């Protein structure tokens, strides 16, 4: 009798807690979906800006070296996979184009004759206006490719090594939709669609167990909330930062996983420094804007520290304020790029062995590399989630640091 009573109380309690639980999740996810679009737009805009800033230096045209460079690039052009018999296979020339950002999505085959999807090039020449054309317009012989802008008439020259320059040394901004930008747009569209529908399904079936994709993603949302945001930032303040943390977490996971899918162009979004710069800057910006007087006090006038020691501590702390997001940025980029390089190195090993020690050695190496590559793929799957976790966790720690209470 007693047992039954207890169990019925327990049962009603459970139902109640579950209902409020789902209400909470529902409100959280709708909020997240609302803010996601805005954050996505800001990140995308920022990435484009950074890309423009860095690639704008492409205007530097070194005339002294240009002849020399052309020869080098022609040599490099021969070192492709198909020429395994005649030329040396150079692992660097094979790996770097795969991890670097590009103006086309390259599916398979040689870089010149293979099958690839062109992407739009957008240039802004100061005083002349915009140029918009597809990257397939670049044509030419080995190495250097040229294209004329339809609007401004500027001739753009594309070196495999030096990037894009203009013929007259004219200054321009490159805000093209590169492979990484395209990948990010794809991921953002995907995430907006999935997460919006997720949020809607909670409003349609309140209090019911989630189904399908919602059921798959709910543990991740709960993981970010219950294992990252709430324990670190605190229950009351976590809600303020949760949309950003969820956005970065899902963005990083999705772009890491997109980079692991073979044969679709080898996206390396989170391995592109421009992307992580903007992500890290967002973390820095949010923690700086939300910094309360305890945070700034600890930074510039640490309590309980002798005055002379403050001379030493304060510069280090201020330096650390900028160092934290920098490290965040390099960690993500380095981890993802290193993963891609390791997998590609196993591929190159096959060609190197084939070339240097004969076909049988190449075949044997192929078996070994495939096994190691499968192993690395599983490791990279772990790393894809782990790096998103680490990034979100450290961002949460910095936010908690910025909104700390006085505790002494």
């Amino acid at each position: 009798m007693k047992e039954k009573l207890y169990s019925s109380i327990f049962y009603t309690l459970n139902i109640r807690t579950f209902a409020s639980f789902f209400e909470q999740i529902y409100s959280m996810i709708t909020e997240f979906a609302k803010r996601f679009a805005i954050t996505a737009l800001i990140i995308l805009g920022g990435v484009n800006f950074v890309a423009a800033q860095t690639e704008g230096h492409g205007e530097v045209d070194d005339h002294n070296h240009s002849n020399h460079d052309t020869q080098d690039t022609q040599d490099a052009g021969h070192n492709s996979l198909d020429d395994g018999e005649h030329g040396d296979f150079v692992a660097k020339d094979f790996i770097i184009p795969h991890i670097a950002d590009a103006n086309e999505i390259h599916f398979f085959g040689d870089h010149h004759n293979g099958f690839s999807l062109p992407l739009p090039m957008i240039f802004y020449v100061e005083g002349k206006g915009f140029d918009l054309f597809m990257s397939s317009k670049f044509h030419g012989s080995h190495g250097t490719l040229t294209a004329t802008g339809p609007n401004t008439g500027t001739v753009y020259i594309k070196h495999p090594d030096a990037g894009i320059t203009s013929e007259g040394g004219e200054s321009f901004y490159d805000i093209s939709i590169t492979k990484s930008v395209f990948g990010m747009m794809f991921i953002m569209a995907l995430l907006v669609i999935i997460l919006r529908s997720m949020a809607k399904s909670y409003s349609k079936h309140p209090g019911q167990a989630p189904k399908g994709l919602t059921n798959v993603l709910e543990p991740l949302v709960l993981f970010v909330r219950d294992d990252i945001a709430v324990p670190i930032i605190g229950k009351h303040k976590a809600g303020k930062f949760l949309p950003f943390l969820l956005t970065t977490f899902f963005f990083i996971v999705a772009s890491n996983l997109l980079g692991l899918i073979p044969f679709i162009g080898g996206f390396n979004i989170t391995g592109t420094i421009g992307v992580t710069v903007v992500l890290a800057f967002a973390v820095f910006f949010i923690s700086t804007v939300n910094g309360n007087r305890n945070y700034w006090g600890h930074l510039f006038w640490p309590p309980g520290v002798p005055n002379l020691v403050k001379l030493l501590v304060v510069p280090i702390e201020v330096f650390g304020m900028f160092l934290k997001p920098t490290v965040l940025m390099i960690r993500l980029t380095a981890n993802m790029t290193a993963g891609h390089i390791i997998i590609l190195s196993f591929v190159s090993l096959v060609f190197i062995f084939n070339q240097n020690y004969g076909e049988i050695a190449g075949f044997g190496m192929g078996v070994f590399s495939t096994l190691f590559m499968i192993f690395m793929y599983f490791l990279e799957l772990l790393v894809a989630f782990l790096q998103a976790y680490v990034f979100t966790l450290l961002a949460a720690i910095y936010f908690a640091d910025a909104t700390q209470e006085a505790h002494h």
Partner: protein
Amino acid sequence: MELLSILFEITTGHGLAALGAGVAAIGAGIGVGLIGKAALESMARQPESSDDLRANMILAAALVEGVALFGIIICLLVVLG
């Protein structure tokens, strides 16, 4: 003078970059080893807290691994730059 020229040759020949990657890997290896040792010891003492420890162990290992990767990235910049 000869030593200097040899060192110069190594630096220009990117050999030092590979050496740097090796040194970075040593540091990270020691770090990950210590993390694994400490986690295993604590798991043996308190098996009930294994899950918690595992998550923290992986996190700490990822942070240490990051240092090794900084080294690799700098070496890459030297070799490719």
